[in-house]
């Protein structure tokens, strides 16, 4: 019987300013040892970061007829790290129409994760805005490309 090699991955703990360098030893994906933490919080963080890293995601989406051209949004909870870019690309292609209330879901079950994307501010409809005009800002080279 051959023993599988131990793979070591390092993480920087974000739990406090100390910034401990955490080392996770894993054999065939199973954690066998965690080192370098100065407190339990760091050990928990290393485990989570190794097995299922997640990040809160914030970006903006195009909003039509709003008082501003962009609406800030976020994931309702931390999102799988590897899917962050794909989520942001999908949100870049989205348009919502004002008015919008804070907390309103702008994308439900994002990428099948079960996690919603919500508006992080309220935005009134701009009485002077032309609904067809939003996102047509000539300086925003990217919006027409999506």
């Amino acid at each position, binding site marked *: 019987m051959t023993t599988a090699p131990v793979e070591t991955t390092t*993480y920087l*703990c974000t739990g406090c300013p*100390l910034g401990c360098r955490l080392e996770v030893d894993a054999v065939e994906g199973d954690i066998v040892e965690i080192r370098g933490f100065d407190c339990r919080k760091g050990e928990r963080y290393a485990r989570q970061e190794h097995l299922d890293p997640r990040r809160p995601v*914030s970006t903006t989406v195009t909003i039509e007829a709003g*008082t501003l051209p962009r609406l*800030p949004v*976020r994931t309702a909870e931390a999102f799988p790290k590897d899917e962050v*870019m794909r989520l942001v690309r999908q949100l870049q292609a989205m348009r919502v129409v004002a008015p919008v209330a*804070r907390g309103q879901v702008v994308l439900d079950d994002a990428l099948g994760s079960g996690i919603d994307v919500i508006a*992080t501010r309220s935005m009134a409809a701009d009485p002077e805005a032309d609904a067809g005009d939003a996102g047509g800002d000539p300086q925003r080279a990217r919006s027409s490309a999506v």
Partner: protein
Amino acid sequence: MTMTTQPRHLASYYDVLVVGGGPAGLAAALGARETGAERVLVVDRELEAGGILLQCIHSGFGLRYFREEITGPEYAERSLEQALESHVDVLSDAFVFDVTEDRTVAIMSPTVGVATTTAASVVLAMGARERTRGAIAIPGTRPAGVLTAGLAQKLVNLHGYLPGRRVAILGSGDIGLIMARRLTLEGIDVVGVFELMPHANGLSRNIVQCLDDFDIPLHLSTTVVDIVGHDRVEKVTVAPVDAHLTPQLDRSWDVACDTLLLSVGLIPENELSRQLGVRMDPLTNGPVVTSEMETSVPGVFAAGNVAHINDLADWVSEEALIAGRAAGRRATGQRVPADNIRVLPGRNVASVVPHSISTDRVHTLYLRVKEPMLEDSLIRLGDVHERKVRALVPAEMASIKAAPRLLEDFHGDALRIDAVPAQEVTT
């Protein structure tokens, strides 16, 4: 839903008038209402109140003040809701251009024109602005494409305007780190962050989540020595620095980019305070304040980034509540005992706020260290009290409470606040 109530005319008198409608101004107004002050007005120069947080779309705010982790716009809107629900008047799109010693406030706005009003108490809550290229003196040409990280944040998050295609960032402050991630998510190439000091200035969470996650290099002990380009930035020259922070020009290299973001710190916005003649602290760049956040001009208070730079909105709101309550108490004729102990920054402490405290009630002192202390450390309140902390870094403000029972045996008139390594103190 438009949140801001826009008063059509200005009354001739207010109990408390707050200059600036960021988290500081809104919490101060709330605090003033709590004490029974009737007429409380917040004046903000932007189209909507809320302050700088409206453009800080990432999460990380609110854990202390709202007991929930939220983003900047949420924090701003909730602060505004709280103020409006407690019947504070909020006048936005209105610029305060003068405050006098007798608390006459001059305002200019499209709705009220140029008008003056008087207040029993005034709270200064104008926030901070970013240090610019002038403040740090980088040589080279003056092409387009050099801007502060906060301005880039405003352009991208509020207006959807992308400042460039290949971006270098000078300074590892949190706003710069946050923008490194933000621009990367927008498809922009962020070529690197260059930091003069041997340590990062931002939180480790931001180093991991904004740089490491996207393989953006962080070059410590390195600075920009030249900006090259005619109409637009074409490249910057960077060089490592020695122990005296002098650039080693023979080891410099070029970094191709069309944009340079500056993330080199904030300066309290104190033009009005200076005009008014309040006493300033050169260490905080803000007014000298009592434990009630009152400046040297009686009846004029200061709160938030105007008083000292805070990295977290939650601290700002907490401190502004104190300022607002004091302003409200003054307006309604309630008094608390005056301060009787001065507070001084001691070992490895860059600044402390407030500048004085009293022995009759509990105070929170906010401090910032000069050098990072990555070890168990103690914050010491003279020799009467100490608090153990894991680590202290300049990027994160720390605090210590001073309670009456701790000061019972203190008979001096000045209390020194020190930050010392724990193992240095023999027990």
